[in-house]
């Protein structure tokens, strides 16, 4: 675990936003005497109101949103801090932007209703909210400490001693955590409900929902497990349904090592992802093979026994390119 000053990031990502959201809630509550019992909370493109709610619910929604967002980003800061990659500045900046943009927007939209008006065009209130949010985010990003990883270099794995004629292949399957199966089932139900509603309302015109739903299901199933193979040709990754597949040619292998991956902290989540110069097939936390390509780019795949796989890759890489 790396030790680094989390406090500035937590302040920017959680404390400041909480203050902003709270200020917004308090401000609106002080306006309660001037507001009708029911206020507009949603507007169409033209700025005309098309959704209303009791003012208390509106304020509670803002409070809930604020609390939820602050906790979410605070949690993400913790997760990211435990890993080597630090999107910490970016995360914190995003959180602050959201807090300011949303609160200014919501507060402004309520403020206009104090004077009896119902309309809330995006200009100028929304634009000002956007500008303030971006300004704060940029300032935070510039001011927050740029934390450098203390010389963290992944040492390449020791190559397996392979006789000149010997051949070897390393194969292993990796599965997403069992808990994801539950999440997956929930998503299947949701997709099913959406599709049946679409069919009920649109009849034959619901076919785009069918296509999108099928694609989503395919991607989800494909992310549940993968087969990883190392042989003389290189590193092969084949996900559950056969596609997508990933392949690193042995000639493109500069070095390989076994690393530890924290999905949220290192890649911002699970699945097929890019983060900080690495592309990863991230199905679960834990051991992973990291390949540094000759072009400098990195490929990561989470799988058990990554050390043996990396060692075999190094052995083959050195065999085909003795200079490595």
């Amino acid at each position, binding site marked *: 675990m790396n030790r680094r000053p989390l406090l500035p990031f937590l302040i920017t990502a959680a404390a400041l936003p909480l203050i902003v959201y709270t200020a917004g809630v308090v401000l609106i509550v002080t306006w309660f005497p001037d507001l009708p019992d029911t206020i507009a909370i949603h507007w169409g493109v033209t700025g005309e109101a098309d959704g209303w709610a009791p003012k208390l619910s509106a304020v509670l929604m803002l409070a809930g949103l604020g609390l939820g967002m602050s906790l979410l980003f605070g949690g993400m800061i913790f997760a990211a801090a435990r890993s080597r990659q630090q999107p910490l500045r970016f995360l914190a900046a995003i959180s602050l932007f959201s807090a300011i943009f949303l609160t200014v927007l919501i507060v402004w939209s309520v403020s206009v209703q104090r004077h009896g008006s119902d309309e809330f065009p995006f200009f100028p209130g929304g634009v000002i909210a956007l500008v303030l949010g971006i300004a704060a985010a940029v300032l935070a990003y510039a001011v927050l400490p740029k934390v450098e990883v203390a010389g963290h270099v992944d040492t390449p794995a020791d190559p397996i001693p392979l*006789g000149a004629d010997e*051949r070897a*292949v*390393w194969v*292993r399957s990796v599965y997403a955590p069992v808990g994801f199966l539950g999440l997956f089932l929930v998503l299947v139900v949701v997709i099913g409900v959406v599709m049946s509603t679409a069919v009920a309302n649109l009849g034959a015109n619901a076919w785009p929902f069918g296509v999108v739903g099928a694609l989503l299901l395919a991607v989800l199933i494909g992310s549940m497990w993968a087969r990883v193979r190392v042989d003389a040709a290189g590193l092969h990754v084949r996900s559950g349904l056969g596609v997508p597949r990933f392949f690193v040619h042995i000639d493109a292998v500069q070095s390989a090592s076994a690393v530890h991956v924290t999905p949220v902290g290192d890649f911002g989540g699970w699945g097929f992802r890019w983060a900080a110069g690495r592309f990863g097939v991230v199905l679960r936390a834990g051991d992973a093979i990291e390949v540094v390509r000759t072009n400098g780019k990195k490929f990561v795949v989470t799988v058990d026994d990554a050390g043996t796989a990396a060692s*075999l890759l190094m052995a083959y890489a050195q065999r085909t390119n003795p200079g490595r």
Partner: protein
Amino acid sequence: MLLRIDPGSAIPLFEQLAASIRADIVQGTVRPGDRLPSARDVAGSLDVNVHTVLHAYQQLRDEGLVDLRRGRGAVVTDKASEFASLAVDIPHLVAKAKGLGIGPAALSALIREEYQ
């Protein structure tokens, strides 16, 4: 699971493959219920004939270590865990043999005798 073969060795390739898989089972890297990679994949990766790999899988099936099922491929049986329990004994035996200057061939002969 790591499969190694040496085409230069006098031992038939299918036997080397079977031995490699057996070693993985004993070590516990392959466990009951795991599916062995498809014969075609292994053959392609090791640049050997598919039938060589199938022969190795059939040998393991005859020993009761895997089940060959249509559509599912080779699945490691529960008996494999009994095999793995040997893992505790082998290093001890080999260490003792080494200490006495007894090589693998002689040790194998002694073990084979015991089966009579």
